[in-house]
């Protein structure tokens, strides 16, 4: 094969990449809703979309390396609820300042993540089932603590600032989100740590032979997921100005949807953080845009489901192209041979 056709195929591969196609989808969504919707493309509305997608975005960000290792964490939404309740409890009944209460909540989130980590790495249990158990446990504890009715409100303005006000012209939670997004992107794509996650996702046993401390790496990710869930809980509480036991229900499914939509293989090994960010954007824009286009909310959910199936099917596309090309290559020498 000569250099020219090799370059062409590289371009084709780049164009057929999952992230490129998804970027196109996001752009088309944006243009469509800007034409159809009223006051969709304004700066205010853009910030509104950002504001609403930060919590799910954070969960999706941390879910990406977890799915890269071939794991899954179903408990993040429930932990968000539990942390929101505990934060409210520490602030109102414990008399702590929001800053101290927030710090304690992050520690609690880390401990809850540690429970997942311990069960998965020490006892070699499947993450799906462990986090299904803690999904029930965390939500149940949140309901038991509040009796399902107690709501924490009347937080001080200095705390609500992080959820409702602007800082340097952008929503106050955006800088927090960006810092964490960049940190996780660097961790996954630019460090040995990130490479080891992929290795574990491809072949855990192989990774072990390559001297990667598999258990420590996996454990770290689930603890990190706990801490990030606690952070989302604080931002969620600040945005809505209240903490209830049902906070964040269903968020784990949104986060997983965004990660898979972003091209991460659910069995691990393949995926990217920028793909996940595009996945979050695709869902958030669809959700907000349909409201501005005066369509019922439910259509957004249906379209998200359909988009997920299409994305899954299309992720098989580069493989198909590679397969067809390999077949052509196989047949070519036969024809050219003297």
């Amino acid at each position, binding site marked *: 094969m000569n250099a020219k056709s090799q370059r062409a195929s590289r371009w084709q591969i780049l164009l057929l990449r999952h992230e490129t196609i998804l970027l196109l989808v996001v752009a088309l969504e944006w243009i469509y809703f800007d034409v159809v919707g009223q006051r969709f493309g304004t700066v205010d509305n853009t910030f509104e979309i950002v504001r609403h997608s930060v919590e799910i975005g954070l969960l999706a960000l941390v879910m990406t390396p977890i799915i890269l290792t071939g794991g*899954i964490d179903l408990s993040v939404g429930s932990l968000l609820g539990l942390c929101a309740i505990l934060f409210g409890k520490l602030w109102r009944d414990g008399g702590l300042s929001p800053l101290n209460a927030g710090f304690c909540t992050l520690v609690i989130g880390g401990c809850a993540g540690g429970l997942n980590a311990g*069960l998965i790495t020490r*006892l*070699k*249990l*499947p993450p*799906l*089932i*462990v986090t*299904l*158990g*803690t*999904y*029930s*446990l*965390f*939500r*149940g*504890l949140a*309901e*038991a603590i509040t*009796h*399902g009715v107690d709501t924490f409100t009347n937080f001080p303005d200095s705390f609500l600032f992080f959820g409702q006000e602007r800082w340097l012209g952008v929503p106050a939670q955006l800088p927090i989100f960006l810092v964490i997004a960049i940190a996780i992107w660097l961790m996954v794509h630019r460090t040995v740590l990130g490479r080891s996650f992929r290795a574990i996702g491809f072949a855990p046993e192989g990774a072990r032979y390559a001297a990667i401390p598999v258990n420590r790496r996996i454990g770290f990710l689930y603890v990190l997921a706990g801490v990030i869930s606690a952070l989302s809980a604080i931002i969620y509480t600040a945005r809505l100005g209240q903490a209830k036991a049902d906070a964040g229900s269903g968020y784990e*499914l949104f986060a*997983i*949807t965004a990660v*898979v939509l972003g091209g991460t293989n*659910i*069995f691990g090994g393949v995926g990217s953080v920028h793909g996940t960010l595009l996945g979050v954007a695709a869902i958030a824009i669809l959700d907000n845009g349909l409201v501005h286009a005066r369509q*019922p909310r*439910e*259509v*957004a*959910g*249906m379209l*998200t*489901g*359909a988009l*997920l*199936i299409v994305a*899954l*099917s299309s992720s*098989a596309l580069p493989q198909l192209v590679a397969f067809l090309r390999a077949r052509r290559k196989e047949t070519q020498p036969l024809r050219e041979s003297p």
Partner: protein
Amino acid sequence: MKRYFREISVAAALTVLLLVLAIFAPAFYQGQPLLSLSARESPTLVVACGMALVIMTRQIDISVGSQFAVCSVCAGLLATRWPLALVLPVSVALGALLGAINGALVAGMKLPSIVVTLATMVTWREGLRWLRQGQFVNLPDNVQWFGLSQQTGQWTLIGAALLLLILAATGMRHLAIGRFIYAVGSDAEAARLAGIRPRLITFGTFVLMGALTGLAAMMNIVQSPQVDPNSGTGLELKTIAAAVVGGVAISGGRGNLWGVFTGLLLLACINPALTHLHIEAYWEKAIQGAIILLAIVADGWRNRKEAS
């Protein structure tokens, strides 16, 4: 004996719970409430059997709750015009069709089942919400309890669920198809080389799962005067939990429907047990989660012991 460790330990836990109730809250054993509880849980048992089969083939179906709701609403709408004997096959067929969509995507296109059913779960649920806009379906009187007296109806439901369980458990043990399901779940490639068609088996279990969900939806709507379009939320988690507590390995190829039955009984008894023991009912979900964790921790310990 060792092979059935998990099933026996769940049965032991259930026995302990029942004994505690017998000593501290004998009121639990009153006939009518117990009968109502069993009738309420019989549709769940039917779905749990299907879920166990799907998990045994190393797949998962988290769209059952939405399938259940779609079948319930459609059956409810038809029941206002048609006799029940005609509605039942339609509901089962509709469930089988929804299951076939999952099955075609999973087995035909080789897509991961957890994501496929995640997508269909959202699509069916939101589609139903869009069409119904939260309206309940009011059912005519003749739908209730098959027009029989309440107790006879309850016994019919429990009997139907148990009969199905016995048939499925016997089939898994003695029919070739049961062996095939275990074989595909343990190692699909080995099963293929042995002349089994793994994709056909996987497709078939998804269709069966859907059909059973359609049947369960029917068993559910004859119990209440209305059909809630939000019915079936959380059903997938409840049935997965029952299967896992009952000893079905999530990695496929292992499990027993009798274990699923005891697992479901254990989970179903928590809420009435809390009421009778005067503990606040808000603890139900937390205790369910703790039971799931305990069950898998026990299994994890045993696996470690065997490995070392």
